[in-house]
């Protein structure tokens, strides 16, 4: 593209910050070679343009995407930003340049490299979010439900509604350890926190009882004659096991054993 530059855009890492970057790219008619957020430690050899988050500009881009490109593109952009796609900001920006030229049908152009990458990343995100709706395990800590997850994608905005609808009268906390984000719901109000640290406290007797009951149920329900660990792993990849009540402890023990025997070069957690 003729408006390709060697500029890097530096923004605050938020979705609205990114949309301001999109605005700037269209305004200046330039395509940055890279995007990075201010808290990443990336150092660029190329000139850097600082993008100031401007709510008015972001809202204009947001509205334009929704109205001119349709719901499907809007979702693709919004979810694409939450995915773990490497260089996701630039991929989305390239897609938007094309989509604003060609209209909503650009999103169906699967043979286009950017559309292909985004669709794949969004599918990955949606799959992970769907799995986590089931795999999340809450612990009752003094009446509040708490959980820690370690997803690859930023799933909290995607799964939040599901849990808000499911537990409207509970207080709960979902902490995403990978991205240091949390959803807190208490007294019927939900809030989304960023850059937080949280560690699951120890459990009391009642919590311990229900954990034991669940582990026991899990072991009992399997039919010995049909033992099929590969099938289990296909449906429930091992990376989710560490946070699951019925498998977590055992999984960690197994890992420590392997570590001792020198089968693993380093611990996977910590």
């Amino acid at each position, binding site marked *: 593209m003729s408006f390709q530059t060697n500029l890097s855009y530096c923004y605050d890492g938020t979705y609205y910050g990114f949309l301001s970057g999109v605005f700037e790219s269209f305004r200046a008619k330039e395509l940055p070679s890279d995007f990075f957020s201010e808290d990443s430690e990336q150092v660029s050899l190329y000139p850097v343009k600082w993008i100031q988050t401007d709510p008015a500009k972001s809202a204009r881009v947001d509205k334009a995407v929704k109205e001119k490109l349709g719901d499907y593109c809007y979702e693709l952009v919004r979810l694409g930003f939450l995915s773990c796609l490497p260089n996701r900001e630039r991929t989305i920006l390239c897609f938007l340049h094309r989509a604003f030229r060609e209209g909503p049908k650009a999103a*169906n152009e699967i043979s286009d490299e950017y559309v292909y990458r985004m669709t794949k990343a969004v599918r990955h995100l949606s799959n992970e979010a769907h799995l986590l709706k089931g795999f999340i395990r809450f612990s009752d800590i003094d009446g509040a439900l708490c959980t820690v997850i370690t997803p690859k994608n930023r799933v909290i905005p995607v799964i939040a509604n599901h849990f808000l609808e499911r537990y409207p009268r509970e207080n709960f906390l979902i902490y995403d350890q990978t991205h240091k984000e949390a959803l807190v719901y208490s007294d019927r109000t939900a809030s989304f926190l960023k850059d937080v640290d949280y560690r699951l406290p120890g459990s009391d007797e009642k919590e311990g009882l229900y954990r034991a*009951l669940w582990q*026991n149920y899990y072991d009992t329900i399997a039919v010995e004659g*049909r033992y*099929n660990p590969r099938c289990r792993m296909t449906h429930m990849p091992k990376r989710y096991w560490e946070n699951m009540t019925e498998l977590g402890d055992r999984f960690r023990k197994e890992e420590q054993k392997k570590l001792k025997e020198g089968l693993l070069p380093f611990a996977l957690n910590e």
Partner: protein
Amino acid sequence: MDLYDKLTILSDAAKYDAACTSSGATSSSKGTGIGSSIDCGICHTFSADGRCVSLLKVLMTNSCIYDCKYCVNRRSNDVKRAAFTPEELAELTMEFYRRNYIEGLFLSSGILKNPDYTCERMIETLRILRYHYRFYGYIHAKAIPGADPILIQKLGILADRMSVNIELPSEQSLSLLAPDKTKTAVLAPMAQIRKGIVENQSDLVRYRNAPRFAPAGQSTQMIIGATPETDYQILNLSSALYQKYKLKRVFFSAYMPVSDNPLLPAPNVKPPLLREHRLYQADWLLRYYHFEAKELLDEENPFFNPYIDPKCTWALRHMDFFPVEVNEAPYETLLRVPGIGVRSAKRILSARKLHSLDYDTLKKIGVVLKRAQFFITCKGKLREGLIVTPLAAFRALSGDDPAFRTMGTKGEQLSLFDAMASSNESEMKLCLFKPTSPTVTTEPTTGF
């Protein structure tokens, strides 16, 4: 006896029930209670046998007045017995649900005293869940054959899905192995539930707030391999059940040896897991792929081919139907191609609106070509470099069937090719490539 032991005994006794789905219903408490369910269902974990666990699957009690030979809870079996009280079970369900362990409850029961008493205890449990805890999650309840129709009606109002197990695929087998159960006793509640669902649908049109009767429909289960029925009989039975009783699902459960009764397979006989797998594959073809039972099997070929799945078997017998042109074929035709499922077919439909498809684009939109390549053309061309010989096709079609992976050992997979090379080859080809004779098709019967 404490809760821990009760749960062990009563979940152990319930685990042979195949169904554990939480699909087909959408509900929300709208902020007033706890729980929701979504149409596609959610799996909460997978047990060591690879089966989805989405519901707390337990029996109300495992003591039973019946003596069905195939059942682990039969009266004559010497096992520990236990029973939940309704309050206890409701509380356990809620505590599990809050922690997101489960999507809801699957409640069945042995027959304690008599069917009515058993059914009343189940109703009490569900009543506590729905009204005391204001629980809006998923509940699957087993209708107890022989219980009063009024009780079945009550159960259906409280549950999302109902099921009655027909247990065995024919009346003879039923009278032989389950002397206390009769065909009528099993089918009566099934007919009642169907009627209840149909009436409820018209009620809901008239009164928006009419109570919903089993909104996720009803299902059933039968045991495979305990009795001598053929796959053809079983498939006909299940397709008749879908038509006559409007079932949502028919589950198959490979018989696990639980008894050394001479009427049953010996305890050291392996459960027919591959056969069960083939039946499920065929079941999917009936429900989502516009196939009919008589297309898959007939009197002369009453069993599924163990090496190749039912769809491929059909394809190999109807090579004149192929190749299919991906850019032109209608949806129903695309679904007939081995390796193209509902998702791939829909993606092809939407992608080809923009421009014609070639093999690379097919790959990009996520169509797996390993099997499909033998049966399709893109813009009139076969895939480049593809050699279509029966043996190559056979390998590609059978080699990576998950059925063989689930069977576990490499030895078995090797024996597949040994079998091909040996004298069986001609026999198998005969079985595969023999054209289906256009004989007069018999109406599906219920087998009863």
